[in-house]
């Protein structure tokens, strides 16, 4: 089993996909840090005062934005943002957007599992090196490891790049960043488990991509629909919220925002259940 993981560490760095995944990750970090806006892609202002931890300046910032307008050059927008959002913990906010990494994780599952099935090379491994059970466990281990490596690479690069480019006043501090990343760890592992299972279920890369790419939207829509249905039946808004909070995107966001102990514990249970459920299904396909 160890040899299979070792062989994947030999092969995967030779894949072009790895370079693409790294570029995507660095682009997300780079744009987020340069524009001082988590998410890194959108130029629109979507900062909620409660999220940034600098409520009093956010309103002023919104006004200034209306004055400067989004037509200003990127450097102008950046300077305005820096001026009015001092104390904005950008690194914490970027961690809230870690659902973006899901798309990077897809690359890992494709490189580790789907390519093996698509090329048919899986039969070489199964016929001469290992059993199906150990093959599944090896691939699961590799995908989880790969996702964790990318997750921490993203965290460290983002933290230090933010420190260098924007300075201390835009950072929550190394300890906080590490605490948040540790809290988000089960979500990353659950996503890795889900993607690995999907790769085993779909087998071919094209089918896997078709399923995995829109999965986050589908999950969000389904949970939203479920919440509305259940919420309507029960007649409370509270139920709707509690359901929705255990969707991956929400978990990333809320776990980065000083969550309660109960919420963290529930997130861990949800992640563990999802990991076990999907891995069991993936193994048995």
């Amino acid at each position, binding site marked *: 089993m160890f*040899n*299979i993981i*070792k*062989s994947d560490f*030999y*092969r995967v760095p*030779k*894949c*072009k996909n790895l370079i693409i995944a790294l570029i995507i990750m660095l682009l997300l970090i780079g744009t987020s840090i340069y524009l001082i806006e988590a998410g890194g892609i959108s130029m629109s202002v979507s900062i909620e005062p409660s999220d940034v931890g600098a409520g009093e300046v956010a309103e002023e910032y919104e006004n200034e934005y209306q004055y400067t307008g989004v037509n200003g050059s990127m450097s102008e927008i950046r300077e305005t943002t820096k001026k009015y959002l001092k104390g904005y913990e950008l690194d914490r906010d970027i961690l809230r957007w870690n659902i973006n990494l899901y798309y990077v994780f897809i690359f890992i599952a494709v490189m580790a599992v789907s*390519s093996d099935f698509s*090329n*048919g*090379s899986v*039969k*070489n*491994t*199964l*016929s*001469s*090196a*290992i*059993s*199906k059970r*150990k093959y599944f466990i090896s691939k699961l281990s590799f995908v989880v490891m790969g996702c964790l490596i990318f997750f921490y690479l993203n965290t460290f690069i983002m933290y230090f790049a933010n420190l260098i480019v924007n300075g201390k006043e835009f950072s929550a501090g190394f300890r906080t960043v590490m605490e948040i990343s540790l809290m988000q760890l089960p979500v990353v592992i659950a996503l890795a488990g889900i993607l690995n299972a999907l790769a085993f279920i779909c087998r071919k890369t094209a089918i896997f991509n078709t399923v995995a790419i829109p999965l986050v939207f589908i999950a969000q829509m389904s949970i939203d629909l479920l919440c509305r249905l259940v919420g309507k039946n029960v007649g409370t808004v509270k139920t709707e919220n509690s359901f929705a909070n255990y969707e991956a995107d929400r978990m990333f966001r809320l776990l980065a925002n000083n969550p309660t102990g109960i919420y963290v514990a529930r997130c861990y249970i949800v992640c563990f259940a999802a990991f076990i459920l999907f891995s069991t299904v993936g193994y048995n396909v």
Partner: protein
Amino acid sequence: MEDIVLKTDKLTKKYGKFTALDSADIVIRRGSIYGLIGRNGAGKTTLMKMIAGLSDKTDGSFELFGRPDAELENVKKRIGCLIENPAFFPNMTAYQNLRYYAIQKGIVDRELINNALKTVKLDDNAGKKFKSFSLGMKQRLGIAFAIMDNPDFVILDEPINGLDPIGISEMRDTIKRLNEEEGVTFLISSHILSELYSVAESFCIIEKSKIIKQFTKEELDAECGKCIEIQTDDSSKAVWVIENVLHSSDYKVIDKNRLKLYDHLEDSFSVNRIMIENGINVYGIVEKGLTLEDYFITLVEEVQHDV
């Protein structure tokens, strides 16, 4: 102790209601080359896949190196396989592909990779990407993969597919050399029966998911190898002459007017003369010999006729 490499006992594979292989019983002895013959979809690859651990059996069992199929993982490192088309990572070179599998198999000695590439004459193309390989080169890389770690038992499914005549000849020599010099046991399937005949010692014909015949090369030669076919007015009288005058029991009566004699093959003129001297009317006497292909077709037709 390990004289028998593979022994299957009523090995069966079903996909829903479709039976891909029905109660297959074969025995492969150590150091032999065993040929699997059958039409497309007959069940050859299914049998190979089950032995290689790529497919689960539905019923029956098999033993590999004396170990039951439940312990297949323990003996997997002793087998090398090339089943269906050779599949490797297109963006990796031939060497990198083999190195990847060498790591999986726990092979430390990289020289084994170079030796395998040399054996299949791919050492000059070791640095070329798999996607740029011709079909023949891909096939040879597949064989290099199968023999890389000096296995005791090699399973090759259509190994000469896509090879040019020189490649086929080289492949035949390689298989024979590995078998004779290193005692490697082979299970080979091929549609090119003349090639299979030239390397294999035992054969198994599968038709419609069932094993219809197993025989050795000697048995095949005896049954459909060279013979003298005698056309006469009375086979029973001719039999008396063969037994009492020619002193041979190596014959087969086909019908009341035809029989085959497997002796005196070089002297059909004398056989004809003796028959006539003993009052037998000989209408025709010809030297005949079925090839493996003819034999296979005959058997398959018999099965179809029975059904």
